[in-house]
């Protein structure tokens, strides 16, 4: 079974977690034109790469950020909520 490291709970089975999507910056809504905004809303970097993603540990109700290689599914590192704030991960 696939295990995922949770900053709060340690290694837990993957089916305890919910994938919350890629960490992405939002352009300034007042400054972005329609094309830029539609690309922000819909377009994604779809090629395999190392990405930072939101993950949620369902049983403990805990959000964190995880770095993963989408080509191999290998988890490279995680950040707790506190580390997210301190490290400027977003």
């Amino acid at each position: 079974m696939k295990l995922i490291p949770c900053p709060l709970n340690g290694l837990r089975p993957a089916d305890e977690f919910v994938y919350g999507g890629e960490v992405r910056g939002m352009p300034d809504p007042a400054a972005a034109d329609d094309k830029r905004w539609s690309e922000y809303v819909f377009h994604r970097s779809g090629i395999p790469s190392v990405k930072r993603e939101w993950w949620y540990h369902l049983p403990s109700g805990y959000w964190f950020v995880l770095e993963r290689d989408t080509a191999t599914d290998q988890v490279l590192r995680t950040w707790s909520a506190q580390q997210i704030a301190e490290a400027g991960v977003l």
Partner: protein
Amino acid sequence: MFRAPERLDSHYDVVIIGAGGHGLATAYYLARDHGIRNIAVLEKGYIGSGNTGRNTTIIRSNYLTPEGVRFYDRSLALWRGLNDDLGLNLFYSTRGHYTLAHNDATLRTARWRAEVNKHLGVDSRVVGPEEIARALPMMDMSCGGHAPIVGALYHAPGAVARHDAVAWGYARAADRLGVEVHQQTEVLGLQVEGGRIRGVSTTRGNIATDCVISAVAGYTPRILNMAGLTSPIYVHPLQAMVSEPLKPWLDPIIVSGSLHVYVSQTARGELVMGASLDPRELHTPRSTREFVTGLAGHMLDMFPFLAGVKINRQWAGLADMTPDFAPIMGRTPVEGFFLDAGWGTWGFKATPVAGETMAATVARGRNHPLITSFDWERFARFELTGEKGAAAVGH
């Protein structure tokens, strides 16, 4: 069944990336209907080695949007004549298709789809639990007591076909018209100059061409990246599994969105089963134990007597998902570069019509009328073709 050309020419009128059903069908209709025969179809693996050979072979046209219904119904019309067209038995078998509703919300979508379908001349109707129980006496109508069936969308034309044969049939028919199918030929890059496509570089040399069609499903973002484009397409694995062969007992195709199950019985007696997408982006078609245990549990809710039946195989494909569960077809911002993608979990049934409309689009230089709602620009217009109610889980 077809030639294996030894060398790649330095120029083709049209280069198609991907020798799956869609790419080969596009080549066939380009050659047959439009007289364009100087075509190379490039395939990094072997014919039909991608999602054409990995799907659960369900064919139907009971979609939600009028654009979707018209498009897929044209596909069904082509499917019905395809054995004769291609001179190959595709084991096309009309079974009838039930989309089960376990709650009022699903029943409401079923009514919506039935009315849109009827309006466009497609044979779909809502049926009640009594009729379902008569047609499927082997099914537990309470689904283990926790998801009682309250009705279904019944679609009489629902069918299955042998997916490998579809790829082989189109490959052979295209080959006979002069199309070259190059297997074991991987695309490494695209040459774009001044907003126009100029060529393709491959593991077997470079090709000059003014027209490239990408039909590569889960590899679409990588090909788009070679052309300097991004898109809304996101890749998730979609898994499936098959049981040991049983005596024939399940004639129709059964889909339950709430239980995340679709199942049909093949001519060989195996149960082919699928569920929903794997939840996270991943570019490896790997299989998981969680998939088998989850899907088997839901199968047993519906058919408890299968508890002793063994699962023979499981596999996965890479699904190119779009935000609105409709494909992205036709012209792109790069002149001469055409896309047949965003086929996510719903592409097999569209094989003939995708080939026909992509061929017409390329030959005429403008998107075929049946695919204008699937165009690349719809996201910039914030004008999506919302097909999730008919394409998600229900295949």
